[in-house]
């Protein structure tokens, strides 16, 4: 079983959700800015790597956790992944796709654009962090729901 947290560029919201899932970020309080920066993939993914699935870790139930960027084309990317898995004789249900883009607010969006697209990391990165901190409870809730869903499947 594999979980893919997907967002626009696999640099911010998906990394945060995957990190909460794996316990790399706390689920009981809002983390500090340093805790975000320390994450291995946070605000790092370059545009030319978007689409490639990145392994973040394996949780205590043996589920592999990945992040993947799909720009704003998640429907067609998910369609493509489902059909290629079927072609290889695999059940698409082996991959749980979780969208995190809906948790991204305007602050994170602007920060992400500044940092990733325009390479203005010093301005953009703090903005992405501020935006995610404001929405952090929603991330915790999303991951809880995902874990509950996985418990049902397993």
């Amino acid at each position, binding site marked *: 079983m594999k979980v893919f947290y997907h967002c626009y560029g696999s640099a911010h919201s998906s990394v945060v959700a995957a990190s909460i899932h794996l316990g790399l970020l706390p689920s009981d309080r809002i983390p500090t800015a340093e805790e975000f920066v320390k994450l291995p993939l946070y605000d790092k993914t370059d545009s030319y790597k978007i*689409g490639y699935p990145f*392994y973040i870790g394996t949780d205590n139930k043996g589920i592999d956790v990945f992040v993947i960027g799909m720009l704003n*084309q998640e429907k067609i*990317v998910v369609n*493509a992944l489902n059909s290629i898995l079927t072609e290889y004789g695999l059940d698409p249900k082996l991959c749980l796709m979780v969208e995190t883009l809906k948790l991204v607010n305007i602050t994170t969006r602007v920060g992400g654009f500044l940092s990733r697209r325009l390479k203005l990391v010093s301005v953009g990165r703090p903005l992405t962090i501020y935006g995610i901190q404001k929405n952090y409870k929603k991330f915790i809730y999303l991951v809880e729901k995902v874990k509950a869903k996985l418990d049902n499947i397993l």
Partner: protein
Amino acid sequence: MAKIIYHCYGGTHSSIVAAAIHLNLLPEDRIPTGDELLNLPFFDKLNKEDHGKIIYMGTDDFGNRVYSLGRRNAGNIIIRAVKGVIKLFGFDSKSIYFIDTMPTVNFYMCIGGILSRKFGLSSVGRPILIYGIKRAYYNILKLVKTNRFLSETSGD
């Protein structure tokens, strides 16, 4: 055996024609008629909801499976995602070939395709589309032949 995926914007015109040439469903020595094109499976039939689906068209003489795919403008992302995920399951991503048919698409195919698929005006769009495909046919043929050679030589 390889998997060969012809892809274009909507996955229902140039990629279907390319896959059909690859599978010998269309002639190599002349330009096909409009009816021959319209009788192809999935030709001018797929819609927005089908974008992203990798559609099996047939198996060629060498045992390679041939597909078409509509990927809008997300070709690169889909290629990375598909190859990346397949690798995670222990398969060799080098046995999947993605062949972009967009370079063969001309103005008439664009206009005809948009009229027929996006606006649902197939009676107006199809004749324009077919005119466009006939004009582009030898280019599509060349693209397929070049890549078919590649898949034959480096197939399994």
